[in-house]
C-alpha cells in the first residue's frame, strides 16, 4: 500500500520523502541518575505493535521537520490518534 505521511508544514506527501524515526517512547530520559538499562530501554527496545502505533518521522526530502503521527503497521496507512478518534466517535 502506498505510504503517505502528513507533514505538519508541507501537508500530505509521498512516504518516500520521509525518514522513519522510531516508535514514540516519550521524552528522552533525564541524564541524572540514568542507568545503562534505562538507556538501553529507550534506545533499543520496541513494542513492535502490529496495529496502530505513534511514531516519529522526519520530512527528510522536504522541510526537514520532525513530528509524530499514528500509523497502522499492518496497512501502512496513517490514522487519527486513537484517543482522538474515540472522542470523535462519541460525538
Amino acid at each position, binding site marked *: *500500500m*502506498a*505510504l503517505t505521511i502528513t507533514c505538519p508544514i508541507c501537508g500530505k506527501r509521498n*512516504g*518516500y520523502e520521509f*525518514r*522513519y524515526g522510531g516508535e514514540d517512547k516519550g521524552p528522552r530520559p533525564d541524564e541524572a541518575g540514568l542507568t*545503562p*538499562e534505562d538507556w*538501553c*530501554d529507550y534506545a*533499543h*527496545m*520496541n*513494542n*513492535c*505493535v*502490529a496495529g496502530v502505533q505513534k511514531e516519529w518521522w522526519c520530512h527528510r526530502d522536504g522541510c526537514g521537520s520532525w513530528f509524530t503521527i499514528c500509523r497502522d*503497521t*499492518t*496497512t*501502512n496507512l496513517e490514522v487519527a490518534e486513537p484517543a482522538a478518534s474515540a472522542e470523535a466517535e462519541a460525538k
Partner: protein
Amino acid sequence: MFSKKKRLLGDNPPLKSTYDAVIIGGGLHGLATAYFLATRHGMTNVAVIEKRFIGFGAAGRNTAIVRANQRTQENLPLYKEALDLWPVLTKELDFNLMFYNCGNLNLAHSEAAVKAMRLQVASAQFHGIESHLVDPQQCKELVPALDITDKPRYPIYGGMYHPPGGIVRHDAVVWGLAKGAAKRGVHIHQGTAVTGINVENGKVASVDTDKGKIHTSRVLNAAGGYSAALSYDFLGIRLPISVLTIQAMVTQPLKPLLHHVVSSGMYHCYANQTLKGEIATGAHMDAWPNYTTQNTAHYIKHQAEALTEFLPCLKGIKFMRCWAGLADMTPDMAPIMDGNDQVEGYYMDCGWGYFGFKSSTVTGKYMAEFMATGEYPEILKPFTLRRFKEHRLMGETAALVSYSADN
C-alpha cells in the same frame, strides 16, 4: 481445486492439554528445534503451534541463500556448523534438500569495501572456512556476465568468493523437518494461534491458544516476524527488534548464465539463477517497520535498476513473480537466542532478520539442547538478550553495509 488443505501437513492431531514443551511458530526455527528435541533428547511430547500452515512465514519466502562467511568470531562457528549440516540432514531426513553449493561471490565497489572484505575473509579463514579475496578480473572469470568496466555507477573493485556456500531448497527443509518431527511423535498444530503465555511464580505454567489451554513448563518463542510483538503482548518483555517487510522477485526463465550467488551490499541487491532458469533476486527492505508483506512499485523499480547495473545482459528481462516476507531486525544484525532468564521456562529464538534460513538447523539443534537440559550452550551465550543492556553489541552490521535504505 487448490483447497486450503493441500498446504497442510496431514491432519492436525488432537490438541492435548499438556505437553513437555510448546513451540510457537511452524517456521524453520520452530520445526528444527522440535526435530532435535525428538531425535537428540528423546523429548517427543512436544507441540509446534502454527497460526497458518508450516512455512507460511519467512521460512517459505526467503531466497534460500546459505553461506558461512560472516564477520564476527561469535557468528562464524555457528554458521560454519550450519553449512556442514546440510548434507548430513539430507541423509538423516531421507529428504532431498537440494543443497546446491555453487558458491557465493560478494562484490566490493570501493577500496574501503575491499579492505573490509580482507578482514572478513581473514576471520573466516581463521575458522577454517574457505573464503578468498578476488580481483575484478577473477570476478569476471567466475561470472562472465558481470560488467567490470567503469561504466556502472559503482564499478567493481573486487570481491569475496566463498565456494562452499550456495542455495538450499527452503520448502524442502520445512517439510523434511516437519515430517521427521511428526514421525517421532511431535504434534504439529496448524491453523492454531497462541494467544497468551501464563506465568506462575516466575515460571511458565501454561499457554493459551485459540483452540484451548495447554499446560507446559517450557515454551519457545520462534514466531519470526511476530516474535517481538508476542513477547511484549504476552509477557511485557520488549525486544530490540524492528520488523521490516523485505521484498523478493524472480525473472522469466533464461538459459544458464549465472553459476554462483552474486551479491552487492552497495547496490543492496543479490541474485542467483535457479535450476529452472529464473534469476531470483532481492534484498530491499522497507525503511520503516510494517507487517504488510506487500511489494511496492518503488522497490521493484529499484531492484531492476540495481541488478542491471552489474549484470547489464538482464536489461529488458521481465520479472515474473514477486513476494515479500517479514524480517525481525536487531541493531547489531545478530539474533537473540536466550531463555530461562526473566521468566523460567520461556525461551526465545528470534531477531533473525534476513539471515535466519542458513542458520535454522544448527540453531534448532542448540535450542533443543538448551530446552532439554536447561543449560545454556556455550555457542549460544554471546547471543543473550542481556548484551544490549550491557552495551556489548556485536559487529555483524559492518559486514552488511546497511540493512534499510536509510540506515
